[in-house]
């Protein structure tokens, strides 16, 4: 299970953007988290991805509470979670060719040897051609870069996937294509998914269940978008 218990988090302890949020994702389950812009969804997604330490509350990953976040999180925990963000340009190192971008987590975890085969397999899965793999982020479109970012998120075969507005910048066809990649991955591996977004139609079509931000946070905070 991926469990968030009473998580309060933000950027200023006096004014947290997430208050008392609780949410559970079971293995193999696809949960949509629906909320308006600026409500704090992305912040909660970063907590769930172990990228942001909450001010209070706990994250329990596969039965074990998380104590350390970001680069301090133990490797086996960090690699259990794959993340895709809304803006591929902000989350991709502009110096890396797409092939190295996808392989980055393998290198970082000392599995460099596995990279060529795994990257080739994933490129096929997400629909990137060999020519595109040799380019750097500024030489590809947002849609192509997001395909690479999704491949990177899958490269370590995570048990959990967090997609924060993964398709918000993308056209309808690329959206449908990337959602299909995620769903094929979930079906074949039994991974759980937390898909964060503001598009009700999309999340309802994509996920087993969709929860609204107001029901996840006990004290629905009024935040302007």
């Amino acid at each position, binding site marked *: 299970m991926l469990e968030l218990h009473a998580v309060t988090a933000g950027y200023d302890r006096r004014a947290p953007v997430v208050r008392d949020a609780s949410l559970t994702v079971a293995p193999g389950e696809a949960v949509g988290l629906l909320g308006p812009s600026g409500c704090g969804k992305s912040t909660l997604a970063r907590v769930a991805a172990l990228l942001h330490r909450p001010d209070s509350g706990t994250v329990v990953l596969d039965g074990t509470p998380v104590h350390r976040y970001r680069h301090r999180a133990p490797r086996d925990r960090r690699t259990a979670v794959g993340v895709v963000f809304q803006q591929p340009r902000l989350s991709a190192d502009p110096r890396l060719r797409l092939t190295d971008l996808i392989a980055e987590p393998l290198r970082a975890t000392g599995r460099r040897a596995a990279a060529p085969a795994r990257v080739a397999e994933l490129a096929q899965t997400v629909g990137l051609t060999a020519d595109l793999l040799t380019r750097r982020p500024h030489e590809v479109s947002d849609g*192509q870069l997001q395909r690479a970012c999704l491949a990177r998120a899958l490269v370590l075969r995570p048990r959990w996937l967090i997609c924060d507005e993964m398709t918000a910048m993308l*056209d*309808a066809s690329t959206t*449908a294509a990337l959602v299909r990649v995620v769903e094929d991955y979930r079906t074949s591996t039994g991974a759980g998914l937390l898909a964060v977004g*503001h598009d009700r139609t999309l999340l309802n079509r994509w996920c087993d269940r969709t929860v609204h931000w107001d029901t996840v946070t006990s004290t629905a905070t009024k935040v302007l*978008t």
Partner: protein
Amino acid sequence: MTERSPVLSVRGLSVRFLLPGGRRIAAVTDAHFDVAPGECLALIGESGCGKSVLASALLGLLPANARTAGHARLGDLDLLTSDERTLARTVRGRRIGLIPQSPAAHLTPVRTIRSQLQETVAQLTGVRGRAALRTAAEQAAARAEFPPDHLDRHPHELSGGLAQRAATALALVGEAPLLLADEPTTGLDRDLVDRTVDELRRHVDADRALLMITHDLAAAERIADRVAVMYAGRIVELTAADTFFGAPGPRHPYSRGLLEALPDRSFTPIPGLPPELGDLPDGCAFAARCDRATDACTALPPFTDSVACHHPVPAPTPEDIRA
């Protein structure tokens, strides 16, 4: 949309980027369209298909390695041949209001939204005096639904949605006859998309022309009078929005694929990827992904009627022809 002369008239617009080693990127090829006062034309298509390059060409904001051909007339001015001084002093902000793709990057990071709005009001309107500028800036903010209690914030202290509204407020200050919105609703939730789009529509209804570039088909459906679909740098279909989104639907296989990919339709992606703009096939650029392709499609389909396709769907009935 009928007999009035268009605000913007684009004829045969092409943009090429010259790369080292003699490579050429055909970002926009032979675009033809008009936008009339009181009309919104939505330009849709997947990322990287040339929409923003087309917008940059109209604004004279292309990088130095770009070459343009064709005409883009804004009244008596051809935007493609105007010099930078003319564009900077008389066009951008005054005759074309730009609502940019990445608002955060477009706003000045070190200054508050209030101060940027006041400066723009002072630059583009006759308003003078501290109190009057303050009021005008607040009114400009209100028009884009930017919350007054956030006016003293800096851009980095705003969410994506608020940054977008700040940029919209700035674009509206000059009351330009043509508004050019590049992905104005990216990152906004549906309520905000609707409100932003409705606000833009009000400006259209106040007799401005709006060219709205978007990949958000729901936003396009809500605002547009006509829809232009771009694929691999070419406009492949240009038609009335109600025909496009309603019955009988679009006629180009790519347009149909895009609509079918929506989560409230079949949610099926178009197979494959668009071709490289530096290496386009001689014939129809969609052929490799098209289930209607035949040998005829190795020749470039001319734009006839409303569509550039050798085998458009559905075949027009006599009633459609005079629509």
